[in-house]
């Protein structure tokens, strides 16, 4: 049995805003959310080469009672806020949420790194007494599935819990596995997404791998530069995105407004190197996704590229897109606006795709001024284009050799 899976609500917290109006305005006017790195951690900031970050630097009016807030690290604040917003927007009542037919697929790259650092500091206290100061809630705030289970607890959700933890494909896996859970009748609705919080340790990891942008520290809005000849690496960001996925008849019966339909998903592994991008793996994932969606390459109007602005990654992706799609679909990468929001990128980029479908316009790749000839063989979006978009494919690739392709269709 295969059932149709629709999207009935979305919510995002991003470096360019919280909520559709603000985010869309900033996308259309090409505003970057990348700024100079917060300097609150002297030890790491002193030694980092990259000093730019996609920062959520505005206040969010959280309204969580203490009984829920006590187990929330920063990452779960983001997660629970976007989950709350999709529940409200979808109009899903408590009885439905607690029916056992609604689940959560939500993740982060590794729980709350801020809380984890507190734990490590306590463990490595030279007096050897610090471990007694590890808080009762520290593990609940920092464990890998902290976002998913804090959402279930806060909203009384009793269905299945999927907590993907595959770095940059976390959110796209969440959406994909949520889609499959509904499609095959295991659940009627799933809250899907991911979140990640600001933390310098994340930057340090990529900085040490020579993967971060370092040449634009004085002009942060000019980096990252997906597919551009002057790109010099990724920019770490923070944020969260959530989608309410729902079985079509279930949504219709509730009278929920349908935004779009998820029509396909594929995930594969390169089966080899854990870091280097792999064109064959990306091509295979594209083909699997098209087959799953039962569409042809020519049916896709826009590809939301993973495009982190690393030297090799962008080339491999552009070549794979050209191999499977030719020059048909427009190609845009959105990390120029928000940086690489790590686990959350797939959800945020899917939400950007929904906005573009709703508004009838394709947002260009920010900071793409001159395409690297090795990336120039696809149909890059260089400026805002008015277009009725029917199908968007969202690409995401992660350390560990994980690739995903997700297909979303406009609801008509």
């Amino acid at each position, binding site marked *: 049995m295969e059932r149709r899976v629709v999207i009935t609500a979305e919510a995002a917290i991003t470096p360019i805003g919280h909520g559709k109006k603000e985010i869309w305005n900033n996308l259309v006017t090409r505003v970057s959310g990348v700024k100079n790195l917060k300097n609150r951690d002297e030890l790491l900031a002193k030694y980092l080469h990259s000093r730019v970050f996609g920062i959520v630097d505005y206040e969010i009016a959280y309204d969580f009672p*203490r*009984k829920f807030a*006590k*187990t929330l690290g920063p990452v779960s604040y983001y997660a629970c806020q976007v989950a709350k917003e999709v529940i409200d927007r979808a109009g899903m009542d408590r009885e439905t949420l607690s029916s056992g037919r609604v689940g959560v697929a939500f993740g982060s790259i590794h729980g709350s790194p801020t809380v984890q650092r507190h734990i490590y500091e306590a463990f490595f206290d030279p007096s050897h007494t610090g471990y*007694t*100061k590890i808080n009762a*809630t520290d593990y609940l705030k920092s464990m890998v599935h902290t976002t998913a289970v804090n959402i279930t607890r806060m909203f009384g959700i009793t269905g299945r819990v999927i907590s993907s933890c595959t770095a940059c494909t976390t959110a796209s896996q969440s959406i994909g596995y949520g889609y499959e859970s509904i499609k095959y009748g295991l659940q009627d609705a799933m809250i899907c997404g991911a979140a990640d919080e600001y933390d310098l340790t994340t930057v340090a990891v990529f900085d040490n791998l020579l993967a971060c942008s370092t040449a634009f520290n004085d002009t942060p809005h000019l980096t990252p530069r997906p597919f551009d000849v002057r790109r010099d690496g990724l920019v770490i960001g923070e944020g969260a995105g959530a989608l309410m996925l729902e079985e079509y008849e279930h949504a219709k019966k509730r009278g929920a407004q349908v935004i779009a339909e998820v029509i396909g998903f594929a995930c594969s592994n390169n089966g080899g190197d854990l870091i280097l991008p792999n064109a064959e793996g990306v091509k295979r994932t594209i083909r699997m996704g098209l087959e799953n969606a039962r569409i042809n390459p020519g049916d896709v109007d826009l590809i939301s590229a993973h495009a982190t602005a690393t030297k090799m990654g962008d080339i491999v992706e552009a070549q794979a897109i050209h191999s499977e799609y030719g020059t048909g679909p427009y190609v845009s990468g959105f990390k120029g606006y928000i940086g690489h929001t790590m686990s959350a990128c797939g959800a945020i980029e899917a939400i950007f795709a929904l906005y573009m479908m709703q508004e009838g316009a394709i947002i260009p790749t920010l900071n793409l001024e001159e395409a690297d000839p090795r990336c120039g063989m696809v149909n890059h979006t260089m400026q805002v284009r008015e277009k009725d978009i029917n199908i968007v494919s969202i690409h995401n690739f992660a350390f560990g050799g994980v690739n995903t392709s997700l297909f979303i269709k406009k609801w008509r």
Partner: protein
Amino acid sequence: MTRDIIVDRILSILKEEFEIENPDLDENLTDTYEFDSIDAIALLEHVEDMIGAPLTQEEKKRAMELRTINQICDYIERVIKNKK
């Protein structure tokens, strides 16, 4: 440390750290304020600061049965007495 001081300190901690205001001393904190096992562990950290000494594992386990403020204060008085 007198009983009155212990009561005042516990009431202050419950208000500032757990958002529990003006509780009855014999009220069941779990039933009335959803004070759970996570809160109990967190409260013990404050108790350790209050008495100026770490609690043993056995002392902590005994605390898991406490439900009211009066029971908490009895417990603290016993712990202080045993540590003298």
